[in-house]
Every structure is written in structure tokens, then in C-alpha cells.
């Protein structure tokens, strides 16, 4: 397998995040935020004792802070919410004398003080930057007030809420307009909410804040059991002291409050806060509505799939037995599919969306889904589901490390972990656990990230350990867990004598185990584990895809297994490269804050290698990968020597071969000829059928093939135009051959073709029987006057027999059709790399360059290195570029025999006698002829190549060199892969013995001690609170 393909494949699954990406990810910042500076700082909140030491960061439109332990205190603050900044005098507000401190007054009146502890110049620069960015955020401030009205917390803490009923009702009327996207009606809401009076206070939903379907259809779970009232009280307190929605500062108690379960009415808002989708919504006003509007009425494979699932997404929840709920769900899912067509829709997104919508408005849900799919769980829902498969592999390995006895038992009994755990991860536990419990896991997932999914999964296995060790097959394994999930709300210790212990539910126990015992699972653990298995998973997915593609071919022609495999590789490489190119421009304009999706293609530019033909949904068409015309050009360039230009670039340092596919009408024609379904894109089957018709050809079949490629209407005749085009195609194929012999042959051929065609051309009404008529010739149907007919360029003119005769008259062309053409198709893996270094190629400069090349060249940077060398070479004026012939039949000496052939082409005597009469026919030769390179025999770098290998003309010495380079590169590549797989994770678990592994785990524990302690602490708090104080 070509390393190029492997690399391209890897790239299509995973792009290493940049430092900027990681920064944005750490603070849940929108795409396009740039880091602009950081300082050490101590943060205090007015009226609070605690001071947190950490780092303050500035980005384009946010100020962010994290305490040193990265979790006690965190803040992501839109600059637009900063009302006032003051520099504090030393000693003021409790800052150390001589310290540099700022006081920030926020939108909600909160005041925070940050003391900058970096060196003076750093602090000064940071403040200067901050001032600039604050100014730039002024326009956003206007939007802030209306935006803040979309938050439940805003309403909940507002003095309005305390007004008596009548005043509130009046106010309500006025506010009602705001909630346009919240599609619920009040009548219903009133009826259904009675049992929740205590929380809905004013008892309706018309306050303008965004809310979910739960406001109308009730929230799942018993509000008393969920202790909604107490929770709301605690949250009110927290929000009053620590800011709310856009200005909320996370203190340690925040984590604890989330861990005991978010209250229903605040849940949606807290989800969008903790995952960061709130900021996307703030930065992209109107985008959701626009997506819906612009795509109204459109259909796609994704919308069809969505439609199938709408009625089976949480059907037990009242809203989804109702048009209101279904329509809402449809809008969110389709909007996301349009915003990220490369992902579209994947089953499980329906469950997730249905769940989110209970707590969130459509727009909130849309952005939350965007963050989930693009950032939190990348690759989970993509067509390959690469992220899902990878995390299953990671989970399995974590089980092996953390719960070795279960892992060993499963291995022995042949129980497959993923049969249970796949839906856990894919649906955020919604499909496996009762809703109320799944939502509490989601609370933590948004707060603490994907590691939560692993921690909970491990805890489930651990808690059920004894029973799991008894299972003997997948089915029994599933059943143990099913029983467990069904009893999660029951006491974990029903027989305990202590009543408080009895009150601990299995779910609480699960949480404690997850966050205490598996606190060792950190973000870094997950990151490094993913890295470890990435390559392995890509290979397994690709191997499966390849096997299926080959298996599902209806007709494999004469291609053997190896050839089918190579054809598939080329097909895929072309497709991947096109996709990558389609992605690039959209990445370039990423700064303009418009497209909501960060990864996939932008909404209005479907990737060139589209799925399902891209021409709207055809119900019967299976989703199938196809390559378009552009990708086909690359494909052909890879496998047909004449469909690419190979330039030998000598830049004075080293030589490399630059391969570029070349576009020509011939390529168009072959594309159309191979496109059996006329869908404008080729399937793998089309490619295989096409290859079958060229790889095994003899003289006669090659002749017929080229003829048929040019016979657009399949009537067995070429028109005059097509005769010219076939000649042009031949010239195209021969364009890089040294000397003028091919040119001479083709010019003779043209002369002959026209001469013989004139004498053999069919009568005015040609026999129509051979017409296979995909597109009937427009001219044949209509009777025409004789005089017009003879001038009509669309008239049938030249038959295959005549074509054949003319070709066979020329030995050089006969040779070409006999073997050269067939040999010009090669499925071998091409590697566009440099020739093996030629000692002394660049003289003295080559020496140090060669050193660099040896030192830094890797598979990854080869291209860049070549570019660099070319650039340097150009500056030094030592770069030379030489074209490599495609056929390579003629060596320099042979080419020199007829040096005058080229002139003769333009001499009147050699011109086709009848041609000049019709001026509308362009001279096909002029342009092509000008492109013909005329190498002086001695400087032709390829000349030596063909003189030696007479038996197989296409495999000159140079080609052998390329193959050698290829195999070398392959070797090196493998080594590199091994390096990544093992070396980089060495410090983690690369060692051999179990003892070593345990040591490493120990070390991690120590490093994470603070965290572990805290998590354990909060776990206990959780028990206390959940079990007692909240009771």
C-alpha cells in the first residue's frame, strides 16, 4: 500500500490540532479566536475570600482564566460583557503593595480583581492588548442585552419575577415576541405544568427566554425526587454571587452543583454554557434561522434518514408523540445536516437531539449539537464513524489496564465489550440508561469532557464485576447490564442497617466509583490512548471499506485480486485528494465568522467527491462513493503515463520528479466514456469496467477503444470533428516524446484519414443500425440537402475499418497500438518522490543540502522540502526542469533521425488537401505543436533510460529507480509508523512488564493527586448532599 495513500487516509480522519486549536478547545472558544497573550494572575471575586492563582489569557474577543489545577476556578468571558476596567492602586482591594492589578466590572454588576504577576513588560503588553480588544468589542455590547433575555437565569434572577402576578402578566405580553424560535404555545403549557407550580412560579413560558419542550410537556422524572426546589435555591445563590450565563465564573462549588444534577429549568442553559455552544450562538446570530430558510424544501440522503428516525426517537416522551416535538426535532437535525453535509446525519444524533430539546430551544440545541459533533466527539458520527471505533478501542484498552480480571475473563469467554459499550458512547448513555440518569451523565460530560464517558463506562463494569465474571457470552453480558440499568434508582445497599447507607442509590454509587476510583482517567489519558490506536483503527476501517467495495462489484472483468486492490487504492487516493482540496479554500476563509461547522465542507460547496452522485436524492440509489471529473483527472494521471506531466526538476541541490495530472479533451472523453450511468461521476464499478477495457488490450482492441472513446454518439462513425479530435488526442499522448517522429506520423495519419474517409464515407443517410444511441445524433434524424450534408461537421464520416487501415499503415503507430498504449496503463503504486540522491548532482551546494535532506526529510515534509529546494534553486538560478516522455519508446538517437518532420508539418505539401477549405475547423496541430519540447539529444535526461530497455520500452532504468525509491520510501514509512505507535507513548505505558505499567499508573496517580483528592471529595459531598441535605 502506498504511503501516500496511507498518509492521505490518515489526514482524512484526523488532523493534528494546532496549539491554537488546543487553546480554543480548553476554553470552549469559537473557531477563529486567536490567542493574543497570557499572564500569570491571581483572581478574586468581589465579596469572596478565595483567591485563585492561575493564568489569564486574552484572545480576539474573550478573556479567559484558569486556576493552576485547571479546575477549581475557570472563566470564559466575552469581552463585550466587560463594562469597566480600572487599574487599582497598589494595596487597594487587598492586592499586594506594588502589585499590578485590574478591576473588571461585568455586565451583571459583578466585580472581579485580577492581579497580574508576570514581568512588568509582559503585564504592560497584555494590558495594551486588552485595551485594544475591549474597544473592538464595543459593537457586540449592543447585542448583549437582547441576547441575555434568552437565558432562563436572567429571568429567574430578575426583579421582574418578584412582581405580583398582574404586573408580571403585563410584562409577559410584551416579552412574548422575543421567543420566536421557541415554538410552543401557551395553552398547552398551562395545562401540563400544574404539578410543577413551585418551579414555574408564574406558570407559563412566555418570558422570552429560551427553553425546551419540557416546559410544555413536563420534564422527565419526579420533581420531588429530583429535589428541584432545593437545587434551584442553591443555584440562585450561586448565580447571584458568581455571575450568570455569559459572565458565570466557575468556582469549586459549581462543579459540585453540577454533579448532583442540574435542575430541569436551568439544565439547557448550563449545558450550552459548559460546552461553550453559548458563545457560538452569541457570535452567529440568525445563522440557524438562515440555514432553515435557505434549505427549505430541499431533500438529501440525510434528510431521508432523519425522516425515518423522527418517530422512533424517545417515543415514550409526550412531545414526540406530538407534531410540535417532531417538527422541532426535524428542524434541528436537518439544519445541522445542511450545515455539515460531510457528516450529514447519523443514527444516535436523533436521540441526542431529542434529549437536548427537552431542555433547550431549537437554536440552543443546534449549536450544542454543533459543538458535540465537531469538537467534543469528533469523528463519532461521520460516515466512517472513525471516532466511535477509535474510542471503543481506547475503552477496551482502559478496561484491560484498570480492570484486568474482567478484561481477561472477556477475552477467555470471547465476550465483546463493544456490543454493550458502543451505544453508551454513541448516544451519551441515552439509549441504555433511564433518561433521568443519562441526563446526569450528560451534565458531567459537558462540564468535564469526553473522559466522563470512559469513567462512567469503567465504573459500570467495575460495579457489576462479580456478575460479569460469570458471563459466558455476549448475550449474558448484555443481560447483566440491562438488569443493572433497570434498577439504577434502587438502593445500592438495601440490607444495610444504617438508614443513610440504605438511601444511597445504585446511581449515586456509580457516580462515586466513576469520579473517585477512575479519577486517574484524565483528558491526557484519553488523548494519548487515542493517539496510540489511531493508525490501527484507520487501517482496519479502510481495509473493511476496501474489502466491501471490491466484494460489492457486480463485474470485476479480467482484473485479478491484486489489480482490483490497486485500482481501489488509486480510486480512493484521487477521491481523498479532491476532498482535501475542496476543504482547503473553506479553511482559508475561516476567519470570517460565518459557517457554523468547523470541520466539514462549507454548506454551499459540497465536496467534489460527493456521495450518491450529489444530484439530489434518488430514492433507489445506494450511497456510493464516486469521483467527479476533476478527481478522475488525478486518477488517470496516476495510472496512465501520458495523462500526467513528469518533470525532472534539478534545483542544484537534488533532483526530484514533479508529477502533475494534465487536462485534455481526451481525459474528458474517457471520463464520459466510462460514466456508464451518465451521472457525471464515476463509481468504483465504472472504474473497474473502464480499466478492464484498457489493461488487457491487443492491437485491434486498442484501436477500437480509442475509436470508440471518440465516437460520442456510438454510431460506429467518427464525424469530421471527431477525426480531428482523435488526432489531437494522439498528439497529446505523444506530447512529451523526444524528437519529431511521432509528430510526423500523426501528421501523415491525419492526411490519410481525411483522404480515405472522403472516399469511404457513408452515403448521406448512413445505416443507423450500429447506433447504440445513448444520445442520438441530432443530424441523422433530419433530412438535409446534399450540399449542407457534406459540410456538416456532425455527419458520420470515418468508419473504424478506415481508421484501422490508416493506423496500420504507419509502423510507429502500429507499435503504439500494439503494445505501448496497453503498457502506458499501470496500476503500480506511484510515488512522487525524488530520485535517489545522485552524488554530486549539485556540486558543492549539494553537499550541505544533501545533509539537510538526510537529516530532516520525512515522508511528511518531503513535498515542502522539494518546494523549498525549488525556491532556493530558482533564486540561485540553477533550477532546470525537464519533461519526461510518457511512452519513452524513442531514444534520443532515433528521435534525431527525422529532425525535419516538424517543419514538414507546416509545409503546404503535407497538409491534408481538403482541410483548408473549411476555415471553421481550427488547425488542431498548431497549439499542440507549439507545446512539443524539442530536446537537444544530448541533454535529454530520459534518453539513457530507453536505450537500455528495449524489451519493455516503458520500463527504462529511470522507472526502475523510481520503483526503488518507492520501496525505500515504503520501508522508511513503516518505520515511521512504528515510531509513532510505540515511541511517543513510551512514558505512558510503553514498557513491558506489568510492574512497569503499575509504576506508571502510580506516577499518574501522584501527579493527579490534587485532582483525585478533589474528585473524591466532591464524590463524598455528592453523597452527603444528594443523600441528606437536599432531602
Amino acid at each position, binding site marked *: 500500500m502506498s504511503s501516500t495513500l496511507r498518509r492521505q487516509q490518515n489526514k482524512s480522519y484526523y488532523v493534528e490540532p494546532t496549539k491554537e486549536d488546543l487553546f480554543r478547545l480548553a476554553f470552549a472558544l469559537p473557531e477563529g479566536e486567536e490567542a493574543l497573550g497570557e499572564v500569570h494572575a491571581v483572581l478574586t471575586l468581589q465579596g469572596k475570600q478565595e483567591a485563585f492563582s492561575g493564568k489569564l489569557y486574552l484572545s480576539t474577543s474573550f478573556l479567559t482564566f484558569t486556576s493552576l489545577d485547571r479546575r477549581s476556578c475557570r472563566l470564559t468571558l466575552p469581552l463585550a460583557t466587560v463594562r469597566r476596567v480600572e487599574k487599582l492602586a497598589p494595596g487597594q482591594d487587598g492586592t499586594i503593595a506594588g502589585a499590578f492589578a485590574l478591576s473588571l466590572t461585568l455586565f451583571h454588576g459583578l466585580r472581579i480583581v485580577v492581579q497580574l504577576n508576570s514581568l512588568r513588560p509582559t503585564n504592560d503588553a497584555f494590558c495594551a492588548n486588552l485595551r485594544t480588544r475591549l474597544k473592538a468589542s464595543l459593537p457586540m455590547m449592543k447585542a448583549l442585552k437582547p441576547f441575555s433575555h434568552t437565558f432562563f437565569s436572567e429571568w429567574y434572577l430578575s426583579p421582574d419575577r418578584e412582581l405580583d402576578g398582574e404586573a408580571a402578566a403585563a410584562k409577559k405580553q410584551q416579552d412574548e415576541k422575543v421567543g420566536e424560535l421557541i415554538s410552543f404555545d401557551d395553552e398547552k403549557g398551562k395545562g401540563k405544568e400544574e404539578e410543577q407550580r413551585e418551579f414555574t412560579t408564574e406558570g407559563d413560558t412566555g418570558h422570552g427566554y429560551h427553553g425546551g419542550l419540557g416546559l410544555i410537556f413536563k420534564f422527565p422524572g419526579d420533581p420531588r425526587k429530583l429535589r428541584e426546589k432545593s437545587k434551584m435555591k442553591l443555584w440562585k445563590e450561586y448565580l447571584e454571587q458568581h455571575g450568570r450565563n455569559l459572565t458565570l465564573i466557575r468556582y469549586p462549588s459549581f462543579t459540585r452543583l453540577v454533579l448532583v444534577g442540574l435542575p430541569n429549568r436551568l439544565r439547557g442553559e448550563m449545558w450550552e454554557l459548559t460546552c461553550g455552544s453559548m458563545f457560538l450562538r452569541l457570535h452567529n446570530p440568525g445563522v440557524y434561522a438562515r440555514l432553515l430558510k435557505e434549505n427549505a424544501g430541499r431533500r438529501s440522503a440525510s434528510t431521508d434518514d432523519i425522516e425515518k428516525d423522527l418517530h422512533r426517537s424517545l417515543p415514550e416522551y409526550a412531545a414526540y*408523540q406530538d407534531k410540535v416535538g417532531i417538527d422541532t426535532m426535524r428542524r434541528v437535525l436537518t439544519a445541522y445536516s445542511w450545515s455539515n453535509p460531510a457528516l450529514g446525519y447519523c*443514527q444516535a444524533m436523533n*436521540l441526542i437531539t431529542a434529549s437536548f430539546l427537552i431542555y433547550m430551544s431549537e437554536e440552543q440545541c443546534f449549536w450544542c449539537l454543533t459543538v458535540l459533533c465537531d469538537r467534543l466527539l469528533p469523528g463519532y458520527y461521520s460516515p466512517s464513524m472513525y471516532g466511535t*471505533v477509535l474510542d471503543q478501542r481506547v475503552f477496551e484498552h482502559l478496561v484491560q489496564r484498570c480492570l484486568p480480571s474482567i478484561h481477561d475473563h472477556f477475552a477467555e469467554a470471547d465476550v465483546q465489550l*463493544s*456490543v454493550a459499550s458502543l451505544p453508551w458512547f454513541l*448516544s451519551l448513555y441515552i*439509549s441504555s440508561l433511564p433518561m433521568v440518569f443519562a441526563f446526569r451523565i450528560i451534565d458531567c460530560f459537558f462540564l468535564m469532557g469526553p473522559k466522563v464517558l470512559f469513567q462512567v463506562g469503567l465504573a459500570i463494569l467495575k460495579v457489576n464485576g462479580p456478575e460479569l465474571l460469570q458471563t459466558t*457470552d455476549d448475550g449474558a453480558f448484555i443481560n447483566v447490564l440491562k438488569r443493572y440499568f433497570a434498577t439504577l434508582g434502587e438502593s445500592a445497599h438495601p440490607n444495610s442497617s444504617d438508614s443513610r447507607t440504605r438511601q444511597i442509590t445504585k446511581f449515586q454509587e456509580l457516580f462515586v466509583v466513576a469520579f473517585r476510583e477512575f479519577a486517574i482517567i484524565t483528558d491526557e489519558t484519553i488523548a494519548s490512548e487515542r493517539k496510540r490506536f489511531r493508525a490501527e483503527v484507520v487501517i482496519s476501517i479502510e481495509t473493511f471499506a476496501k474489502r466491501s467495495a471490491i466484494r460489492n462489484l457486480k463485474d470485476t472483468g479480467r482484473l485479478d485480486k491484486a489489480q482490483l486492490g490497486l485500482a481501489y487504492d488509486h480510486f480512493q487516493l484521487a477521491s481523498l485528494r479532491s476532498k482535501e482540496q475542496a476543504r482547503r479554500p473553506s479553511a482559508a476563509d475561516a476567519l470570517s465568522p460565518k459557517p457554523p461547522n468547523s470541520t466539514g465542507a462549507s454548506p454551499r460547496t459540497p465536496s467534489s467527491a460527493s456521495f450518491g452522485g450529489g444530484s439530489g436524492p434518488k430514492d433507489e440509489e*445506494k450511497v456510493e462513493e464516486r469521483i467527479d471529473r476533476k478527481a478522475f483527472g488525478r486518477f488517470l494521471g496516476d495510472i496512465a503515463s501520458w495523462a500526467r506531466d513528469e518533470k525532472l526538476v534539478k534545483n542544484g541541490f537534488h533532483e526530484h520528479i514533479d508529477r502533475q495530472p494534465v487536462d485534455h479533451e481526451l481525459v474528458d472523453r474517457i471520463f464520459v466514456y466510462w460514466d456508464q450511468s451518465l451521472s457525471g461521476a464515476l463509481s468504483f464499478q465504472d472504474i473497474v469496467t473502464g480499466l478492464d477495457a484498457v489493461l488487457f488490450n491487443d492491437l485491434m482492441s486498442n484501436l477500437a477503444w480509442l475509436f470508440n472513446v471518440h465516437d460520442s454518439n456510438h454510431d460506429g462513425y467518427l464525424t469530421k470533428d471527431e477525426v480531428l479530435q482523435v488526432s489531437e488526442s494522439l498528439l497529446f499522448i505523444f506530447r512529451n516524446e523526444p524528437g519529431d517522429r511521432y509528430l510526423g506520423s500523426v501528421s501523415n495519419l491525419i492526411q490519410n484519414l481525411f483522404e480515405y474517409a472522403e472516399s469511404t464515407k457513408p452515403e448521406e443517410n448512413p445505416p443507423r443500425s450500429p447506433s447504440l444511441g445513448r444520445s442520438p445524433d441530432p443530424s441523422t434524424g433530419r433530412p438535409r440537402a446534399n450540399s449542407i450534408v457534406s459540410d456538416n461537421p456532425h455527419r458520420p464520416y470515418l468508419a473504424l475499418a478506415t481508421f484501422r487501415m490508416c493506423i496500420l499503415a504507419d509502423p510507429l503507430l502500429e507499435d503504439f497500438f500494439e503494445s505501448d498504449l496497453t503498457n502506458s496503463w499501470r496500476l503500480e503504486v506511484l510515488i512522487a518522490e525524488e530520485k535517489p540522491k545522485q552524488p554530486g548532482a549539485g556540486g558543492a551546494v549539494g553537499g550541505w543540502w544533501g545533509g539537510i535532506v538526510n537529516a530532516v526529510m520525512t515522508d511528511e515534509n518531503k513535498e515542502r522540502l522539494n518546494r523549498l529546494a525549488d525556491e532556493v534553486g530558482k533564486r540561485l538560478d540553477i533550477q532546470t526542469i525537464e519533461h519526461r516522455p510518457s511512452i519513452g519508446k524513442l531514444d534520443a538517437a532515433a528521435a534525431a533521425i527525422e529532425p525535419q518532420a516538424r517543419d514538414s508539418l507546416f509545409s503546404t505539401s503535407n497538409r491534408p488537401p481538403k482541410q483548408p477549405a473549411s476555415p471553421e475547423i481550427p488547425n488542431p496541430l498548431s497549439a499542440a505543436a507549439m507545446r512539443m519540447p524539442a530536446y537537444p539529444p544530448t541533454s535529454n535526461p530520459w534518453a539513457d533510460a530507453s536505450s537500455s530497455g528495449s524489451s519493455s520500452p516503458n520500463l527504462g532504468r529511470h522507472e526502475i529507480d523510481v520503483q526503488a525509491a518507492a520501496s525505500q520510501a515504503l520501508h522508511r514509512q513503516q518505520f515511521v509508523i512504528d515510531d509513532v505507535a510505540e515511541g511517543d507513548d513510551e512514558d505512558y505505558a510503553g514498557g513491558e512488564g506489568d510492574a512497569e505499567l503499575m509504576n506508571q499508573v502510580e506516577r499518574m496517580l501522584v501527579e493527579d493527586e490534587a485532582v483525585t483528592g478533589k474528585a473524591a471529595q466532591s464524590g463524598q459531598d455528592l453523597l452527603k448532599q444528594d443523600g441528606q441535605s437536599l432531602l
Partner: protein
Amino acid sequence: MSAPAAAPAEAPARPVQVKLVLLGESAVGKSSVVLRFCQNDFQANKEPTIGAAFLTQRCRLEDKVIKFEIWDTAGQERFRSLSPMYYRNAQAAVVVYDVTKSASLEQAKTWVKELQRQANPNIVIALAGNKVDLVRPSSDSDEPSTPTSATSDDDEADDATATPEDDAAEGGDEEGAVAASESRRQVSREEAEEYAKECGLLFFETSAKTGEGVVEVFTEIAKKIPLDHILASTRGPGGAAGRGAGRGGPAAGGASVNLNEEESAKKDACAC
């Protein structure tokens, strides 16, 4: 129901575990077929399948008790690469398509190909064209609700399958009604049956909604599986190994079941 009277009393009927997987395009009715088989119920809107759902069902065939372990997979195309996880070690597979969607048969064919190359070599595969109620004369599809009766589920299911099947077989007498509902049909019975025969598959047309053909699918699969062989291989030597081998051998895979001969067998089928 009870075993045939002829059944000797000696067998304590240790259940034979049969792992069965359902495959096919999304929304063809896989989960509904399973629900009909296991609970004799039909619900228009049910839980979605993520990855795969797992269910078990005990049945009696002649003197043996069979415990079907059913894996009902998610049908969306992108879940496809995950499916080997579910069909590995399976002794039987039901590949479902929707008779009102021709594309779903094409999809079914790719499943069959995959199973024949990648799955357990002796796997028994049944092809089921579901939703035939949609293409039946109105008398069937107009039935207000699903046929459920508290008295005897088994008999009910059997009757439900038998009646419409006869209609279809004799056909012709109610040309008009047939023509109207048949217009929704995109896959003819003949076409699918022929394909099934070619590939050595059991073939059925089913309706999870009315129950037609559902029990038969599982009955015929049970008959075709080398139960004794499985029994022998799971624990201790079972009886009549020779017979089991004869049924399960690769040669047996070529013979498709003659649907006209199954009437007698039905009475013994699946006393669930």
C-alpha cells in the same frame, strides 16, 4: 405449545442456543419483526436501535427447545463496518428488505454477499421481504389493529400467517383489489425468490404488522440449523450426530425450503 404426542419423554430438553442476527437497510422493519416474534406485538413507534438490540426467545421444535439469541442491528449504512461484531459466531441470519422499496433488496444482496464471505461458513441465511401487508388486498391491510389475542399467541400467529399466504398463492380471484395494493410493491415475489434460490437462502415474505410469515422465518431457520451438532459442540455428546451433520452440511445449504410443504411442520413450530 406442547411437543407432538409422538415425542418420547426421555429428552429433558436442554435448550440449544442459536445466535441469530437481523440485518438490512434502516426502517425495513427488522426491529418490528423481532418484536412480533418475541412478544407477538406491533408498535408503530418504538425505541430506536443504536448499534444493536439484544433479545432472547425460547421456542420448541419437535423434541428440542431452542433459545434464540437475537441481535437486531441498526440499519444505517454508516453502521455497516460495525456489523461484524454482531454477526460473528452467528448460526443464523435474517436479512430483511422492504417489498415496497426496491433499493432495500439491493442492500439485502450486499448483506448476503458479506455474510457468505465473512461470517461463520455454515450460517443459515433467510431472506425476508417485509411489509407485505402494504401490498395485500385491502381486506388485510384495513384490519383496524394487530391481531392479538390473550388466549393463545401461537395459534393466532400461525393463523395470521396461513390465511393471507393462501390468498397470495391462489390469487387471481380478486384482481382489482390486488392490482391497487400491488402497485406499492417494488419487489416481486418471484424476483426475490429466484435470487434466494440462486444463493441458497430461505425465503419468506412477512408482515410484522399482521404477523404473516414471521414465525415461519424462525421455524424454518430452526429446522435447517444442525441443532444436534450445536448441542454436541456446546457440551457433551448429543444424540444423532449423523443427522445433524446431514442437515447442516454445505450441500444442504443449496436446497431452499419448499413453502408448500411447511403446513404440517407449522403445528409443531415455536411454542414460544
